[in-house]
């Protein structure tokens, strides 16, 4: 993975020192909260319902064991012993004290981490495929390009006061696990006929109150011109994006109002003026960054592991976990492992300090010192030898991290909701917990198969309800929490927005309603191989909506 050099380290250290001075002025009363607000927001520090919240950047979701241990340390020393992994592959600490935040930033800087640009109207953390570098279906590892974009976007002088926040995602897989069509800019890395890195560029995707699937505005963009093209995209947005209404300020609104073709034309004209300038990436810099992401020294292991096969045959619980949480790997004899942060009844995405340390230790021993954060709020051990899977499973299980539900009905994305967030209309976490408990039978979950439920506690859609196979949106109705159900969304390479069905339901009715929809699916699917979303696309919404409101 990437390691800081002197340039990277000095920037992060200087930023931490700058914020220490600003917090000092605030604590001494020299700055009012209003004056302090823009400063803290540039450092990922929000003021939530009950306390400050610090959002720490995890670039493209990649963590070393040492970094994960540092996050555990911060959770234990400065917070209440846990952290919350987010849909943007970051981590949030919910209870830090303001006067401790400078120390936390110093702790982070000591392991090459920071909270820069995790809030504010700037380019946020670059996200990517959580199986990057491990996936069978990618043309090359997208992470070097994520790192190149991370550096370019950090303290960008022109784009730190955009109309609104800006999210960029990169994937290199045939299967899109990074939801690139739901981002302000989504990049799909491919190879041209000569094997060179080129990008398809999607612009103007996003969720929130007016969701859109991104429009493809460029194909075959050469890698060395990636930054100049992004700069052109951002420049057109910075100049012409709306600033009069924050709900219409995202780039998706500009792209829709101009039309994707006209937006693309303006970008192309701007790009022509800058494309061969100082932003052209030197081949040596691309090679330097790629070298950090060279594949780890995989052993030449046999495709079939006798130890693994024997364990599958002997241990039903292990076999159930392996079916759901173990994923094919590009290297023979290896697998990627989803570490579930969705134990039945727990808060989706939360991990205790002990759990983080357990995963860090496993990453060090079994996964070349690397862990990942997924946008579905789980962790991943990307490179585990099949021989070792049973031991990894047992050790995860000892920390309640081996729930065999990756991609299944209880692997729910949920925003923090009204339990933490001052924007929320309703709670999300208790709804997720209640649904998970309704489907607590792990064999039944496996029988249902892949089903993605996503819950947002308000229209801002942090829980991605627009692209849930089943989406749940919390709305406030005269002081009461109601939930609208959406059906048929997906965030992958065939991205589609879910449609709202019928009237909202109270929280108590949601688990039963979801159960009826799932039962309707089980009754109408052609066989166990027809996934929920495939069945939905075959038969349409009607039978599911009927089940939803049956009593």
């Amino acid at each position, binding site marked *: 993975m990437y390691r800081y050099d002197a340039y990277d380290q000095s920037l992060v250290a200087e930023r931490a020192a700058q914020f220490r001075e600003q917090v000092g002025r*605030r604590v001494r009363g020299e700055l009012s909260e209003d004056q302090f607000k*823009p400063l803290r927001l540039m450092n990922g520090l929000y003021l939530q319902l009950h306390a400050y919240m610090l959002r720490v950047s995890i670039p493209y979701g990649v963590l070393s064991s040492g970094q994960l241990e540092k996050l555990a340390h911060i959770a234990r020393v400065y917070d209440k012993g846990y952290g919350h992994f987010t849909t943007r592959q970051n981590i949030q600490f919910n209870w830090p004290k303001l006067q401790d935040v400078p120390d936390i930033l110093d702790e982070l800087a000591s392991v090459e981490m920071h909270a820069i640009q995790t809030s504010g109207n700037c380019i946020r953390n670059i996200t990517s495929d959580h199986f990057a570098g491990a996936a069978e279906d990618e043309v090359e590892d997208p992470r070097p390009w994520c790192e190149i974009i991370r550096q370019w976007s950090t*303290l960008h*002088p022109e784009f730190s006061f*955009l109309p609104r926040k800006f999210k960029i995602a990169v994937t290199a897989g045939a299967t899109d696990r990074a939801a690139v069509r739901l981002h302000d800019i989504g990049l799909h890395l491919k190879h041209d006929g000569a094997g060179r890195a080129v990008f398809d560029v999607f612009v103007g995707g996003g969720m929130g109150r007016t969701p859109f699937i991104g429009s493809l505005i460029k194909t075959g963009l050469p890698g060395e011109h990636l930054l100049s093209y992004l700069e052109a995209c951002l420049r057109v947005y*910075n*100049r012409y994006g709306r600033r009069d209404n924050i709900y219409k300020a995202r780039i998706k609104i500009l792209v829709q109002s101009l039309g994707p073709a006209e937006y693309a034309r303006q970008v192309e004209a701007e790009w022509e003026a800058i494309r061969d300038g100082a932003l052209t*990436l030197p081949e040596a810099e691309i090679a330097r960054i790629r070298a950090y992401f060279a594949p780890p020294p995989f052993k030449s292991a046999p495709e079939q592991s006798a130890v693994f096969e024997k364990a599958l045959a002997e241990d039903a619980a292990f076999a159930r976990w392996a079916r759901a949480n173990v994923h094919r790997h590009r290297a023979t004899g290896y697998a990627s492992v989803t570490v579930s942060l969705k134990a039945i009844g727990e808060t989706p995405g939360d991990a205790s300090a002990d759990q983080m340390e357990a995963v860090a230790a496993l990453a060090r021993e079994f996964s070349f010192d690397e862990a990942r954060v997924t946008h579905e709020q789980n962790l991943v051990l990307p490179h585990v030898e099949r021989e070792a899977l049973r031991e990894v499973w047992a050790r995860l299980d000892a920390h309640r991290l081996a729930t065999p539900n990756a991609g299944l009905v209880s692997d729910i994305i949920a925003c923090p909701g009204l339990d933490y967030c001052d924007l929320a209309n309703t709670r999300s976490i208790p709804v997720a917990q209640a649904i998970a408990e309704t489907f607590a039978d792990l064999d039944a979950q496996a029988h249902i198969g892949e089903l993605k439920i996503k819950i947002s506690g308000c229209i801002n859609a942090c829980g991605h309800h627009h692209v849930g196979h089943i989406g749940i949106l919390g709305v406030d109705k005269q002081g009461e929490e109601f939930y609208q159900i959406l059906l048929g969304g997906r965030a992958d390479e065939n991205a589609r927005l879910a449609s709202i069905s019928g009237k909202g339901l109270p929280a108590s009715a949601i688990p039963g309603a979801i159960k009826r929809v799932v039962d309707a699916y089980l009754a109408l699917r052609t066989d166990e191989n027809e996934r929920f979303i495939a069945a939905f696309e075959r038969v349409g919404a009607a039978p599911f909506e009927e089940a939803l409101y049956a009593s």
Partner: protein
Amino acid sequence: MRVKPAPPRANAYFTALIRGGAVVKDDPWAPLDDAAPAPDGADVIVSTRRLLAEGPALARRPLGGRLGVRIEANEAVEAVADHLPLLALVAVNFPAFRDGRGFTTARLLRERYRFAGEVRAVGDVLQDMVFFLLRCGFDALELKAQDPEAAFAQAARAFTHVYQPAADARPAAFALRAENPS
């Protein structure tokens, strides 16, 4: 929270024009209303509308006096590009510190149109913008702060290295790495 309430004085902000790191006490430039006659021999800043209408005459007043223009956030720098040779100053207005359009305006002035006169940030210009403003090619700022000179000094030297080429002369980290491979 053990945070003291801000004392009344904390809200006392001052605006000072800063150029080359120092407060400019005797700024010769004055805005000129669209309807007012142009004073001969004085340095005036006009709107883009007046520049487009009367630019050559304003630039060649009998007793001299330099000409500047003020570009609003919603105005395109392209519209005045042909008139840039008449100008000694471009003031770029920031109607609110959240409004970052002026950063692009300045970069285009410097990098695309090679404008070599003064590019001055005016309006809601706060300490947090200073580092970025300098990188985008501003060389004068009407800075609003409790102590503008100190705020400028601190912000201007906040970061030793930068990641992007921009309108200043600072090389991006990737260019430095290419020169000095480690």
